[in-house]
């Protein structure tokens, strides 16, 4: 089963690498991993999608916690959360196929961001399953290239955090 883990890490040299190294050293799976800034500029948020049974996920969470550069590790699976992914997909089309692709794009509420007389690029965002779905539907047309951002996720509902929760005390 897939699990989404959200990790706040120090925005420092090597923090990302440390997490990635730990995953490969321990032989844990990574389906996707994404990292970016948070509202606090010295902290980055990593969203890791991995899979395994409960014992393995517990071990992954503990191993993540053990790293010095990780500040907070939350397992989001089983919690109210929003997960999003963005994909850029370049598909080829033949005469007439253009309308069909446009229809599909509309159904998935994507955007056409580039077009020429042989291919067009779609931009789609949504839960990762939605991205999987459109890829499936577009496959028969011929996907020339594709880039997925990996999942980002946040817990839903009111999040009250003390103002200085993660202040680095000297």
């Amino acid at each position, binding site marked *: 089963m897939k699990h989404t883990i959200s990790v706040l890490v120090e925005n420092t*040299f090597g923090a990302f690498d440390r997490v990635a*190294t730990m995953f490969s050293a321990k032989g844990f799976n990574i389906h996707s991993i994404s990292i970016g800034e948070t509202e606090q500029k010295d902290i980055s948020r990593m969203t890791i999608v991995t899979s395994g049974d409960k014992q393995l996920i517990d*071990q992954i969470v503990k191993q993540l*916690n053990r790293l010095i550069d990780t500040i907070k590790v939350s397992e989001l699976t089983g919690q109210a959360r929003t997960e999003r992914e963005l994909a850029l997909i370049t598909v080829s089309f033949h005469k007439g196929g253009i309308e069909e692709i446009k229809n599909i794009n509309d159904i998935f509420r994507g955007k056409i961001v580039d077009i020429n007389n042989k291919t067009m690029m779609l931009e789609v965002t949504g839960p990762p399953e939605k991205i999987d779905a459109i890829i499936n539907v577009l496959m028969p047309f011929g996907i020339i290239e594709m880039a997925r951002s990996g999942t980002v996720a946040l817990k839903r509902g009111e999040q009250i955090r003390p103002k200085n929760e993660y202040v680095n005390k000297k």
Partner: protein
Amino acid sequence: MNTKKKTMTGADIFFESLRKEGVEKIFGYPGGATIKLYEKLYDVKFLEHILTRHEQGATHAADGYARVSGKVGVVLVTSGPGATNTVTGIANAYMDSVPLVIFTGQVPSHLIGNDAFQEADIVGITRPITKHNFLVRDVKDLASTIKKAFYIAATGRPGPVLVDLPKDVIAAECEFEYPETVEIRGYKPTLKGHSNQIKKAAEVIRNAKRPLLYVGGGVIMANASKELTEFAKKNNIPVTNTLLGLGSFPGTDPQFLGMLGMHGTYYANQAVSNCDVLIAVGARFDDRVTGNTKTFAKEAYKIHIDIDPTAIDKNVAIDLPIVGNAKEILTELLKELSDKPREEAWFKQIEDWKDACPLEYKRPDNELRTQFVIEKISEKTKGEAIIISDVGQHQMWIAQYYKFNNPRSHVSSGGLGTMGFSIPAAVGVAFAIKDRPIVSISGDGGFQMNMQELITAAYHKLPIKFFIMNNCFLGMVRQWQELFHEEKYSFTDLCDSNPIFTKIGTALGIESFSTYNPDEVEELLDKVFAINDRPVLVEFKVAKEDLVFPMVPSGGSISDMIHKRINPKGKK
């Protein structure tokens, strides 16, 4: 900004920081990237720098020093090859949770990434084998980084921390202020065990009919041997040790079952397999201990006390985890439980197992045997020596036949199993311990892996006994070849290629002896143990094709041990 403070160079800040940390010894080797540090070191009086003959030696020496002293071991090496030479030593310390701080020189910041002369990405290389590591990019961060490095190395589950120091950072200047305290928001080593969990554990143990303590190196690291011993004695619970746990409980105590696991005693493994409550303390259910995890202590309710949450449930499912410092948890446990009566039936059962299958070897007829030599050393030193083993058969025989009476006395490469560990580690030990016999024991194979450090020992007149158990073979590998690999003795025979060990010793200025005669052993030991102002070397020419028994074949259940040769070779 405070303008009154004067500025200092990175090199000065480096040594001032070490002074603040109370560092007394530093093991190292100079080079271009650290030359400025060595320039300062020339006039530094508050610490002793020990020049080893190889950076791997420096790292193992710091490791040995740390294991016996309980202090952080410190290493200083240059960039590139100096740094990469420490890798085995760092991995070794990481596996055995030894607190080290390794300082590596680095090429100047502006050259990093350029394949500059003697550049190696040591931070990248050591990421999976350090507890944490740092590249210092600005001299302003130097003092606080050193503070953090020592803090991280020594607290929680200890481990090695590497600090990479670019040459320009060492030369740059800034004001010096050493932080009084450290707080790292992502690092809060849990110390106190959960009190409800402790109460629950006491309750379970109170009702146990066949309790057993399974004790690892964590107890020694936490200086909790006294509490452990008191808990075991007051509550009449038998104790078995892991390789690294030896010494945490007196080896001569009748409640002691010896080591468990692959080359553990039959009775320890039977006790594990039949206990109803297993109390693991500072141990990590390593595969050499558990054998087949499905059958490991399968009857038992398992309590696991450990400082590292990742150790819990990693290999074996735990019923009751208590995360925290072993010393504090055992102290709390003692308050809850200190008068559990002796379970006679259980002790009787254990005695029966001991009688059925004691540790034994054939007395020396004409051949000298390592077991015999170890037993003699144990008697001669009354279990009070510090024994630094290498890796192989002799290491297992030390674990079986030396009766360790004190913690921090058995120094052995457990997790990584690094041949070549003993000689340099003994050098480090000798810089920490002055009042007890120090014995380095190697096989003839491992002896040759870091024998350059004999020179360090000779130069400093370290009173180390360097013993070689020369069986002319890479014995432990030969054992597996004999038992499980169709007797194909592929590249394990050293008979024709071994050097003359006594001549090596002599060439390096170390008085050296050799014997193959069991009748000479006592006298020779008397002679060398009387020498206390310099190293000595003794080669024991021991039986060539001896095997370590009992043994659990890899991955087997620890209740199924082999006790003698299974191949019909007609050998005893």
